[in-house]
């Protein structure tokens, strides 16, 4: 069939009208700001005036000598590691338990476990502040049940290691999402594999190690990388709500330091440079994790 010139023109017009507005919109409100951030990171700029000093890579050189940047970087990776271990262990356990162990109420548990994922991180931060609250908090009141004197620990005020306190809320909030992903992956494993294993007398542990784990490994890899990316990108919120990076900057993460430098101390160039650092670390870590987690993938036929 011969396509006439007008038909071709109509087709092109249709394609253009369905792609260009979206692309233009996306470019203005996402791509342009990202590129502009790279640009700002080369300037010393208070944000308040049009006066911007081009200083090349000086912001990045300054970062090397800023102990808070290193502290933030360390805290970010601490949260990444802690969340990967905590979330993956629990999410995997729940996913297996709710699909393979034949428990009653599996559907109910699945629905309940996802609930923290639909609640705003702000709400979660405030709730956990009340768990940790030294005077009226849940944790101290609970511990006081076992002691003579009432316990009055300021959980979020330690001079070091306060960052540990931010792990439980982060893990609590993250499990459901990855559990759902792993449940879907496990349900894609052909039932016949498990049946054959049952016939050969393999117990649940063996089935997990030799069937489930290798076949859902791809999904676990995606989950681990996703935890890393969302943490580097978003751990800021829980930190900001619970400690504001304190005490004495010991719980600062890159995101919260970016916010503080830019919107509290008006060093917008330096803030943008921290943003670039987040981008770079996130990309490097993705590649590193891809390498580290690489396994011969097993194709399901």
């Amino acid at each position, binding site marked *: 069939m011969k396509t006439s010139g007008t038909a071709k023109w109509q087709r092109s017009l249709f394609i253009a009208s369905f792609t260009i507005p979206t692309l233009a919109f996306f470019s203005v409100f996402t791509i342009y700001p990202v590129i502009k*951030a790279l640009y700002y990171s080369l300037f010393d700029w208070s944000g308040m005036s049009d006066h911007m000093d081009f200083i090349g890579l000086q912001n990045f050189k300054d970062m090397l000598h800023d102990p808070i940047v290193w502290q933030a970087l360390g805290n970010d990776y601490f949260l990444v590691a802690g969340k990967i271990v905590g979330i993956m262990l629990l999410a995997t356990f729940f996913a297996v338990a709710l699909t393979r162990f034949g428990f009653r109420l599996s559907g109910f548990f699945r629905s309940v476990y996802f*609930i923290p994922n639909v609640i705003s991180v702000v709400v979660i931060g405030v709730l956990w502040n009340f768990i940790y609250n030294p005077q009226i908090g849940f944790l101290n009141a609970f511990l006081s049940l076992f002691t003579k004197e009432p316990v009055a620990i300021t959980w979020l005020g330690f001079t070091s290691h306060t960052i540990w306190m931010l792990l439980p809320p982060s893990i609590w909030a993250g499990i459901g999402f990855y559990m759902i992903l792993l449940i879907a992956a496990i349900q894609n494993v052909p039932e016949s594999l498990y049946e054959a294993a049952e016939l050969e007398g393999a117990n649940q542990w063996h089935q997990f190690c030799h069937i489930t784990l290798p076949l859902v490994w791809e999904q676990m890899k995606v989950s681990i990388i996703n935890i890393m990316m969302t943490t580097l990108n978003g751990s800021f919120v829980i930190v900001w709500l619970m400690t504001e990076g304190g005490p004495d900057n010991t719980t600062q993460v890159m995101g919260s330091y970016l916010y503080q430098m830019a919107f509290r101390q008006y060093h917008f160039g330096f803030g943008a440079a921290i943003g670039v650092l987040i981008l770079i670390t996130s990309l490097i870590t993705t590649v590193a994790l891809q390498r580290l987690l690489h396994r011969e993938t097993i194709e399901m036929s």
Partner: protein
Amino acid sequence: MNLGLRNPAAKTIFFAILIVWSLAVLYPLAWTLLDALKNNAQFLGNAPWALPKLPLLWSNFSYVWDKYNFNSYFINSLVITAGSTVLGLLLSASTAYVLARYSFKGSGLLYLFYIASMMVPFVLALIPLFFLLNSLHLINTWFGLILVYASSVLAFGVFVLVGFFKSLPKELEESAVIDGASYYGTFFRIMLPLSQPGLVTVAIINVLNIWNEYVVGTVLINDPKHYTLPVEIGVLQAEMQYRTEWGPLFAALFITIVPVLVVYILFQRKIASGITAGAVK
């Protein structure tokens, strides 16, 4: 055939773990509601897990609703979430349809471009977005937040919907074309109704994310009149250091949670299928 666990001891222990974790999830929610019905004396004098004393202080709810202006924050959140979800869906569905059904010069590249953009941390764009919206006079407006949120959910929508459109059979479209329907007619009258399940899934996930969003809201809104619920919760919690109104604060948390819980209960399956579709890369 699923024989489940054979060891009864293991079965009991694992089941107990499952019960404990459901309590760990559900109890904080119940606690939020119970604490919303207390006054300060009860916070200071009784254990945190003590039930609220009668009469229950439902007035804490009306207090935050009226005195703390949660009525207007609620409307702000509602308008912004609805607006950005609809706009984001329109923009992503149109591109996703073309990418799924037509191949043209650069179509593969365009798809990759959206996918790759999901790798970029959004926080990087925060500072330039503030100045961009400032120069467009869109700081402290519903419209400004709607534009930014719509853009932030766009790539996810394109990704999921391309997969969804590809899964739909081509026959209906082909017969529509034979019947003389235009490109636009085919899309709006045949494809859109067919793709409703996919669109709803993407919309719900976007609704949840946008309703809960805090960082962008905090940066782009600094006039209390235009606060969204999460932004106000953040402000309120900071204020609590000087003004202790714990009961109302918990009532505020509860008001913020209830809408997403309702959406979750209604659309559980859709949400699960949406996040599964969005994560398979």
